[in-house]
């Protein structure tokens, strides 16, 4: 429908329409990547049905990898979008807090022994404890940002530095290993279901978030605070509390992502787990077309953004790019994105667009 209308519009309006559609950016990026892969190597899209090492039927292929690994990113993107919208800044401590929450899960499951034969506590208890801990750390960030009025990225820099150290300290720097196969379901496959479990977990998180946004005023209040803090306060909102709440919600998302992350390995590596994931999460929000300076947000676009990022990562891996070199390529993408979405460049493009259309009319 959009394109039919667009035929009648002038070039400048077309530019404006396209750029103002938030979901347009991630979809365009996805199409670009998809076409690139199709030309470079169509086998990228091959999905095979096989049996994994545990004897369960699974689907495998690059697309499945994207669904699998993009899911924890999508979960984080939900929380990161809210934080971005409310506070106008980003939380760069998510990777470190994932390490903390993961460490807590393992600590509760293992008890005092680092190589238990049986689980010392039900998985659900471990997960709930991790949720509480991650929310406390989120609350710590939230207090610094909302009540002490410290820039979000600098406030979260504290946990960014200390987080992995705290994670190591929780487990006395041991590397616990869980041998129970049930624990690996969360990051792998449930027997009999050939689609990776993280995808379902992400779907559940997204559903809860969507319901919360639909039936509560959370979304509206968050945007109001992000757009103009003092006017929202004059309208009877409590901006500090809304900001605080967004960080606590992000803490919850972090705990869920941590469960997936530690379940994948059935263990933890404090310095490597979820490394650089904060960059990806911020990138997902930016790619979703959300203003990084706060205000309006679009959750669907962010989640799309998360899967597009994973698409990019998987594509780069396929071309044998080393994992350490990945950030360089992603950084180029980030710079490109922020440049085209910056207001200066947008105005410039719009000017060019209107000049062209004027010439056309004359």
């Amino acid at each position: 429908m959009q394109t039919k209308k667009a035929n009648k519009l002038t070039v400048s309006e077309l530019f404006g329409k396209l750029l103002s559609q938030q979901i347009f950016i991630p979809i365009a990026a996805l199409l670009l990547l998809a076409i690139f892969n199709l030309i470079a190597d169509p086998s990228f899209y091959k999905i095979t049905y096989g049996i994994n090492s545990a004897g369960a039927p699974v689907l495998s292929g690059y697309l499945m990898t994207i669904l699998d690994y993009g899911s924890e990113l999508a979960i984080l993107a939900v929380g990161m979008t809210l934080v971005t919208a409310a506070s106008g800044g980003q939380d760069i401590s998510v990777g470190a807090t994932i390490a903390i929450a993961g460490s807590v899960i393992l600590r509760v499951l293992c008890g005092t022994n680092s190589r238990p034969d049986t689980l010392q506590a039900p998985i659900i208890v471990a997960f709930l404890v991790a949720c509480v801990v991650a929310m406390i750390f989120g609350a710590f960030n939230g207090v610094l940002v909302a009540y002490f009025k410290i820039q979000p990225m600098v406030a979260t820099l504290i946990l960014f530095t200390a987080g992995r150290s705290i994670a190591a300290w929780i487990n006395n720097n041991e590397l616990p290993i869980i041998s129970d196969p049930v624990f690996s379901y969360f990051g792998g496959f449930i027997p009999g279901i050939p689609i990776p479990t993280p995808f379902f977990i992400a779907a559940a998180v997204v559903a809860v978030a969507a319901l919360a946004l639909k039936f509560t005023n959370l979304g509206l209040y968050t945007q109001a605070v992000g757009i103009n803090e003092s006017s929202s306060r004059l309208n009877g909102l409590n901006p500090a509390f809304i900001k605080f709440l967004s960080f606590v919600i992000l803490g919850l998302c972090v705990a869920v992502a941590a469960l997936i992350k530690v379940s994948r390995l059935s263990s933890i590596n404090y310095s490597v787990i979820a490394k650089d994931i904060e960059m990806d999460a911020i990138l997902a929000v930016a790619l979703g077309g959300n203003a990084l300076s706060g205000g309006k947000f679009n959750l669907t676009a962010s989640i799309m953004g998360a899967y597009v990022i994973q698409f990019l990562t998987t594509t780069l891996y396929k071309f044998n790019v080393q994992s350490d070199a990945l950030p360089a390529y992603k950084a180029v993408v980030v710079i490109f994105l922020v440049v085209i979405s910056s207001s200066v460049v947008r105005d410039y493009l719009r000017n060019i667009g209107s000049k062209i259309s004027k010439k056309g009319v004359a």
Partner: protein
Amino acid sequence: MQKKRKTLTDANLLLTITIVVFFLMYIGAILFQGKGFLKPQTFFNILNANAALLILSCGMSVVMITGGIDISVGGVTALVSMCCAVYLDYHNGNVLGAVAIALAIGLAFGIVQGFLVAYLDIQPFIVSLAGMFFARGMTTIVNTNPFNVANEEFVALKNVRIIIPGMGSLNKLGKYVNAYVEIGVIIAILVVIILFCVLKWTRLGRFFYAVGGNSQSALMLGINVKRTKFLSHLLCSLLAGIGGFVYFMHVGSGAASHAMGAEMNAIASSIIGGTMLTGGVGNIIGTFFGVLSLSTIQNIVSSAGLDQAWWTGITIAAMLCLFLVIQSVVMARKKK
């Protein structure tokens, strides 16, 4: 100037807190950690190990005074070390060429980041985050494996020790050993002095403060705000290039994991030194003491036997948190 003001200004208050904290900490270290800290060489070793951090922190302070932030400095340091190492060892380069490479990398980062921040009005944090990841990724692309530089000219330069007269001490064998500093420390001290003068007595220095304090009124006063922001980022990245070379001279190797978290330490030092995150307030002397406090506490932590890596991270984070809260309280008081 001091006579005119009867009460402490916020800037002076923060600076005083920093200096007092540093001296308390050092005295505490001497009291509880034994006589090691009494030796002048212990102090000079702290300087030797942190000369690069000092240079990085000075650049960071300038950017923060102007109201921005630059977290790419650690990545730039690693990239400079790696490029210089590869140039010296694999291409038989000379030291001057390596210095030129270091400066060129710093300038390139400064120009790109400064342009994006100042003229395209993109948040400095996002730009420099991308810069950091780019630099780290490029370091791996240039060379994957860490290696030590064997270039003779460079190794000779690396081992130059400048002896400080009258500050020696007896070593364990009872032999008198002169206290020394490395070349990097001299460069760092020069940077501190030059920047102190620039910030205090030049137009550009005043512009930095004016833009950071209130960019709107700076614009009204006819200051070229965009150019000032651009220059602050340029200066910071250039100093990151210089700091990268000094770091390289200290460690003498190239590795992708070099200067991990240096940006964090630089920001922490600046904040501890009384530079306000909101811009407009800050002092290079404070930054100098900030670096000293930070490195002393690291030294205390490691000599207290808590050498597990995590303690350093936690103590720095705790210190940063403390000073951030102090700043926030000072700001709240100012508004009243």
